């Protein structure tokens, strides 16, 4: 079967902030760029980012990129690579001003400068007073960023392939990446998009958990394609959980509720945070509250029929305060928990929010892997940015407002690196004859499967297994069983059957392909988490409650083909300043 083929200088998978920032750099340099997206670009998950973009502009209070760097290293629980963190924090001002020039409607101060607001984890003077570092567009910063970048890309002639799903990475015998195979969801056609540079910006994958704040599109497609192509995934045990997602739906209830005086109750009506954090109580940091909630549930003090959630009480604030200060939250509670917080508490549960791990890259956006002679060899022709990449600037735990910064800085850096690399590689390499075979085989298997598994049932099983065995607080016995269970689920995911075999807009096929991808990410997470016998950042083990820098100050690498783990050192040496040595992380 011959497959249509199109040639581009660069192919980018994913049209969120990271993908579109990189695309813009390339298109404005005159390169021929294709961007693939499962949904219309401005409906990418970047739209959900509200907090803002961290940059030490010092418009409101004195600030310094070096202080921002310290906060990021400390927030990462010292697992972040300090060269990449220095690079990001130093470039923050520049990428924000660039976006301003593109037309991003930032909130402003009276003097006309960009308004900045405080956010958790940001400090002045290396751990001193609260810093004011976040640049925002009201509560819709991500939305404004997507619209700004999309319009600018259209002007620069970036070619968008909307409602296309990338299927697999194409590598030749030397291991060089030559493009992707992809499915046009509208027609069902498979095409090869050949490119001299392939960049993944496919976002997060928190849909592997039943309790997830992520949109349905976040199925880890880029991670799974990478793993299937023999490139390892890095630090997959590190997932940030938000303590208060609506039970059963996942929608975030912001920290503002607890800031206004709301608090958590267990099934006995006890305000249990008083036991775990006598001073900060319900305002303790996200990981502390999430762990306390998980302990309450595990010890049988959860609420509801299945004793599997807790209650967030705010009716004591009074109807006026709730209506005036928390109107959006009230709407969410009514719509998704069928509870009006003026009268009754909101059922909540710790909810997966952000993936710190991903495709290993250096701070130029180049994918690096120990596949030839060194531990961090550049995979020629392959780049990754944003949540799907692990640079690693977030290490074991991400700070709020650093993710929008991450996608801008590394989207641009990857674009610049591709421009340089393409000057040296002016021709497309020869495509191997079997370039699309793997993807076609998966599609053929799906079409011919008899007596197979139901996609949504296996998906539910996958999410429940991850939630129960590899959630916010991790236990040795549950992880051990979890490895077996998730392996079984992954096996079942390889035998899914779809009733609809038609080509045009076959969403059942797309969802089956997404399940393949979720299974790759889930197995990588469970195996990486079981092996790391310490607690660091978002990875909290019941049996190993402390950070162990002697044994574990290193990055995990997971190889899909034999489910093997390897490790590589954390890059502790920054580019120009002194290293921040690991210390206890106390707030």
């Amino acid at each position, binding site marked *: 079967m011959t497959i249509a083929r199109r040639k581009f200088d660069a192919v980018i998978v994913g049209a969120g902030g990271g993908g579109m920032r990189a695309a813009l750099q390339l298109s404005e340099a005159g390169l021929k760029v294709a961007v693939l997206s*499962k*949904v219309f670009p*401005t*409906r*990418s*998950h*970047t*739209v*959900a980012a509200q907090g803002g973009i961290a940059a030490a502009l010092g418009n409101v209070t004195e600030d310094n990129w070096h202080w921002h760097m310290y906060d990021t290293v400390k927030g990462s629980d010292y697992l972040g690579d300090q060269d990449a963190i220095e690079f990001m924090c130093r470039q923050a001002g520049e990428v924000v001003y660039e976006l301003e020039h593109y037309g991003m409607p930032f909130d402003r101060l009276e003097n006309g400068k960009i308004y900045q607001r405080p956010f958790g984890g940001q400090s002045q003077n290396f751990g001193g007073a609260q810093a004011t570092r976040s640049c925002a567009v009201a509560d*819709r910063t*991500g*939305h404004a960023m*997507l*619209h700004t970048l999309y319009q600018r890309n259209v002007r620069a002639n970036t070619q968008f392939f909307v*409602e296309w799903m990338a299927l697999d990475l194409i590598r030749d015998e030397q291991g060089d990446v030559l493009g992707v195979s992809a499915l046009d*969801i*509208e027609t069902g056609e498979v095409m090869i998009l050949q490119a001299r540079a392939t960049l993944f910006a496919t976002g997060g994958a928190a849909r592997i958990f039943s309790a*997830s*704040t*992520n*949109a*349905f*599109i976040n199925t880890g497609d880029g991670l799974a394609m990478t793993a299937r192509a023999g490139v390892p995934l890095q630090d997959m045990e590190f997932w940030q959980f938000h303590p208060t997602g609506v039970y059963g*739906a*996942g*929608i975030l209830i912001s920290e503002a509720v607890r800031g206004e005086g709301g608090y958590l109750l267990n099934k006995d009506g006890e305000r249990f945070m008083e036991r775990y954090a006598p001073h900060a109580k319900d305002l303790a940091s996200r990981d502390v509250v999430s762990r306390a909630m998980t302990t309450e549930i595990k010890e049988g003090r959860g609420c509801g029929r299945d004793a599997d959630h807790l209650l967030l009480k705010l009716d004591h604030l009074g109807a006026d305060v709730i209506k005036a200060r928390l109107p*959006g939250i009230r*709407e*969410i509670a009514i*719509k*998704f928990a069928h509870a009006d917080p003026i009268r009754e508490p909101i059922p909540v549960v710790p909810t997966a929010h952000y993936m710190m791990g991903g495709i290993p890259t250096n701070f130029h956006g180049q994918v690096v892997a120990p596949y030839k002679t060194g531990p961090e060899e550049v995979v020629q022709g392959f780049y990754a940015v944003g949540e799907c990449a692990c640079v690693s600037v977030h290490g074991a735990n991400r700070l709020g407002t650093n993710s929008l910064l991450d996608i801008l800085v590394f989207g641009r850096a990857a674009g610049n690196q591709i421009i340089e690399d393409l000057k040296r590689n002016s021709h497309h390499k020869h495509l191997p004859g079997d370039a699309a075979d793997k993807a076609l085989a998966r599609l053929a298997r799906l079409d011919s499967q008899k007596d197979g598994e139901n996609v949504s049932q296996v998906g539910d099983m996958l999410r429940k297994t991850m939630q129960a065995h590899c959630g916010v607080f991790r236990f040795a016995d549950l992880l051990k069983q979890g490895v077996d269970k998730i392996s079984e689920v992954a096996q079942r995911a390889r035998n899914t059957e779809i009733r609809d075999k*038609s080509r*045009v*807009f*076959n*969403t059942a096929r*797309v969802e089956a392909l997404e399940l393949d991808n979720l299974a790759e990410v889930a197995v990588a997470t469970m195996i990486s988490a079981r092996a790391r016998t310490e607690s660091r950042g978002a990875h909290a083990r019941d049996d190993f409650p402390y950070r162990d820098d002697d044994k574990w100050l290193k990055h995990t690498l997971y190889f899909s083909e034999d489910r093997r783990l390897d490790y590589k050192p954390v890059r502790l040496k920054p580019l120009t300043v002194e290293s921040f040595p690991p210390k206890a992380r106390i707030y």
Partner: protein
Amino acid sequence: MKERERTRWRCRRGLLELDIVLQRFMDKHYAALDEAGIRQFETLLDFPDNDLWHMIVQKEEDEGRAGLQPVLRLLQSV
């Protein structure tokens, strides 16, 4: 022929709030829509995520969008 599937895919959004509400709408109300209703729904799906979400939760009557009210009310009810 595959209009329902095409529309179902366009209910995939960047905001989880919308993913859930639009999926509920598809399950509960889409099949009963007449042609005008389908057109209203498709017009609503073309709005940016944040705008659509605010239209659903704030329930403000906007005269310019009066023609979308019947389907918008169904979206507000799910």
